[in-house]
């Protein structure tokens, strides 16, 4: 029998970026906020011995324990979905700060085009440009409306960056100047300028100088030590929820985090939610935490899983195309090319997660799509995130995968390859969706989320096009040999690709085609907010975290309004 606790104003399910931002904003405003975190507490001091590639990058020290919870996967509805028994394609977070602790810190905004993709595409190219089966739609909010919230998130992080000539208008410059440059970045800058493109430095949450944010939290200067992605920062120099926003919430005196608290149900009376049920995974005790407002602030996967398990909103049915929960799951694709350099050696082992330079000449509709068989595009970049030796063994294509020649080439080219990478936008497709698995259960007896996903024709066409552009840049940079990324085949859950999963509980202007409104308020439960990349109507061609942060600030404002006036906010 679950014990019912005293009611609070707000309970957040998960304490990462979105849970932390809501807590900081709402607790500061006087609301009593409880954050339920299924994992443990952790802080900067815990990363003293963080430069351990095996433990953190290969054995996933900071990530979700898949023995307790994972998802099942299949490429299409005809296949039997099977459990993702170990992490691979994407790295789900766990413990305080969530995946916000082991991110790289690349903090791009989405572009005005992203938020109005359907209307802009149809206006310019006509209705037939968006092919059947693709649920491309406007987000129910414009870039200009979201801009102030981007600004707030970037101030909370202290983002280091410079004006991007092709981006949406900014109300303020970046809080700190761009990071240092390197020889490989300079080569990219020169080559892209020579090709007529407009390079700019990647907006970075690895800070170029010490910074104090709007909550008075100190973030330190990056040391370029090369251990960002998959690692926590031992210097407190990479903005993350634990150093940037959670302490602000704690200072208010109105915030409590309960660790080892795994939520099992959102309690829904058909009209509103009344609270959440959770289990203390160490003691086994069950609790009900009643709240005026419930905010789902876990990762994409669990935000969607909670809605499905608790029967809130109409589930998506791929047979009819009706229903919304679980629809529009998107990922990203990775066009690119690797340059091998016979004469030059680079300091590729140094770096930082967001150290890089990009162009947006092939993003959104910045290039003419009249004769192209896809829409949108992606950022094209060079990054110097710090290549570590276990995971980085680049060899020319005809090299065997082991033995003498492999050894020789992998050692030689470790410091003699530069990759031009891209993140290709991903558009929702009718056959790509999330629902509950009928067979497999997690450690608490709840169904696993089931992912049905494959790359689409749009993805394949986009991949081919951007890869060609990346290869041209690599050649212009003077690579002795350039190897383009392969064409796309079936999506595989095995090799790491990107932890940029989106959708499943998308935002929009119409309850028939979205789960939440533009305050992330659920259409079918006015006191439930579903916050995160689950709300993306499609995935853009840059890293999602800035947009996740902006939406969290938007949701925080929505919750404040809701607590004052009640009802639907739109």
């Amino acid at each position, binding site marked *: 029998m679950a014990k019912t606790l005293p009611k609070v104003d707000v309970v957040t399910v998960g304490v990462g970026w979105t849970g932390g931002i809501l807590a900081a904003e709402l607790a500061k405003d006087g609301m009593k906020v409880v954050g339920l975190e299924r994992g443990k507490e952790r802080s900067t001091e815990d990363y003293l011995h963080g430069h351990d*590639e095996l433990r953190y990058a290969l054995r996933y020290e900071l990530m979700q324990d898949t023995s307790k919870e994972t998802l099942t996967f299949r490429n299409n509805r005809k296949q039997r979905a099977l459990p993702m028994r170990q992490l691979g394609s994407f790295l789900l977070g766990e413990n305080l700060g969530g995946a916000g602790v082991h991110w790289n810190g690349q903090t791009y905004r989405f572009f005005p085009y992203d938020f109005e993709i359907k209307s802009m595409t149809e206006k310019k190219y006509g209705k037939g440009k968006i092919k059947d089966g693709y649920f491309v739609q406007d987000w129910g909010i414009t870039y200009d409306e979201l801009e102030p919230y981007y600004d707030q998130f970037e101030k909370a992080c202290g983002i280091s960056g410079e004006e991007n000539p092709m981006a949406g208008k900014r109300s303020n410059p970046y809080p700190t100047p761009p990071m240092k440059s390197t020889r490989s970045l300079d080569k990219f800058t020169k080559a892209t300028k020579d090709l007529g493109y407009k390079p700019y430095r990647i907006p970075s949450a690895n800070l170029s100088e010490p910074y104090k944010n709007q909550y008075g939290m100190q973030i330190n200067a990056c040391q370029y030590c090369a251990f960002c992605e998959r690692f926590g920062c031992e210097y407190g120099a990479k903005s993350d929820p634990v150093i940037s926003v959670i302490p602000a919430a704690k200072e208010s005196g109105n915030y409590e985090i309960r660790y080892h608290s795994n939520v099992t149900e959102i309690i829904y009376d058909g009209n509103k939610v009344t609270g959440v049920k959770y289990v203390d995974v160490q003691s086994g005790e069950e609790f009900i935490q009643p709240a005026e407002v419930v905010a789902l602030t876990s990762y994409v996967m669990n935000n969607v899983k909670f809605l499905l398990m608790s029967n809130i909103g109409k589930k998506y049915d791929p047979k009819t195309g009706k229903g919304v929960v679980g629809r529009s799951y998107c990922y990203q694709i990775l066009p690119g090319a690797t340059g091998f350099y016979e004469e030059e050696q680079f300091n590729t082992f140094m770096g930082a997660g967001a150290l890089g330079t990009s162009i947006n000449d092939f993003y959104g509709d910045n290039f003419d799509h009249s004769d192209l068989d896809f829409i949108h595009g992606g950022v094209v970049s060079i990054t110097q995130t710090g290549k570590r030796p276990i995971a980085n063994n680049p060899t020319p294509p005809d090299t065997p995968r082991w033995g003498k020649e492999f050894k020789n080439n992998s050692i030689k080219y470790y410091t003699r390859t530069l990759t031009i990478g891209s993140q290709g936008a991903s558009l929702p497709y009718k056959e790509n969706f999330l629902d509950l698995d009928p067979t497999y259960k997690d450690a608490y007896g709840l169904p696993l989320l089931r992912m049905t996903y494959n790359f689409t024709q749009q993805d394949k066409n986009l991949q081919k096009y951007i890869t060609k552009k990346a290869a041209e840049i690599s050649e212009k940079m003077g690579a002795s040999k350039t190897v383009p990324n392969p064409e796309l085949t079936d999506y595989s859950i095995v090799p790491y690709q990107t932890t940029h999963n989106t959708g499943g509980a998308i935002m929009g202007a119409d309850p028939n085609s979205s789960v939440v409104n533009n305050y992330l308020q659920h259409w079918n439960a006015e006191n439930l907010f579903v916050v995160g990349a689950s709300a993306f109507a499609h995935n853009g061609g840059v890293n999602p975290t800035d947009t996740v942060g902006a939406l969290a600030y938007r949701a925080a404002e929505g919750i404040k309004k809701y607590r004052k006036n009640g009802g639907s906010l739109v």
Partner: protein
Amino acid sequence: MSEQEKYSRRDFLKKSGYAAGGVVGGGLIASLITMQVMEDDPKTKNSQTNGGSEDQFNDAFMFFTNRDDFRVLASSCERIFPEDENGPGAIKLGVPFFIDHQLAGPWGNNTKEYMQGPFYKGEPTQGYQSRMNRGEIFRVGIKKLKEKAQSDYEKSFQELSAEEQDKILTAFENDDVKISGTTSAEFFEMMRAATIEGVYADPMYSGNRNMEGWKMKQFPGAQMSYIGKIESDKFVDIEPQSLHSMLNK
């Protein structure tokens, strides 16, 4: 490492109470290696480095139970990452002990993997679907390597020439050998990945002896900061350091 340095580090470890835990591991005396287990094997006899005047306590079996299985693993790892003009191969780098220790721990026991049934053979895009954990997969994989050597050449795996060993390993890689409960390709990929891990993981895990793996690759290990070097126009060669050296910082 000088005698004085050794003592001061041990002193520190004693005082800090660290020595009792598993934190320090092989890093303490990583530069001095004797591989007793390998010594009486003709193919691996020359595997000692640096004189071997001090015991390497970590060079013992945590997972394996007999020398023969261990030697088959060691020979396979050496074919995957052989000694050459760049420097030592898998055996001298301690990779077989690295793998032994990994198999004995959480990785070999799949403690962070979802191991609930039902189990079905999946599509390649669905990844690991074996009901066996990695330790069990290594056991049956090594048994199969031995059987294959006998059936193809009527010799033990270690007696084969490098070319013959490569032929067998290639058959495993290409999934041409049948193994109940797993596949030869799955086992081979696991062994290949673990070999590379053992070459380049921090020496505290028993591989990458004396940081020789890092030295070959010009990877400087656990450095605190590159802020003064990041803008350098030239390649910067830096003496590597291990996590052990950070204990004192």
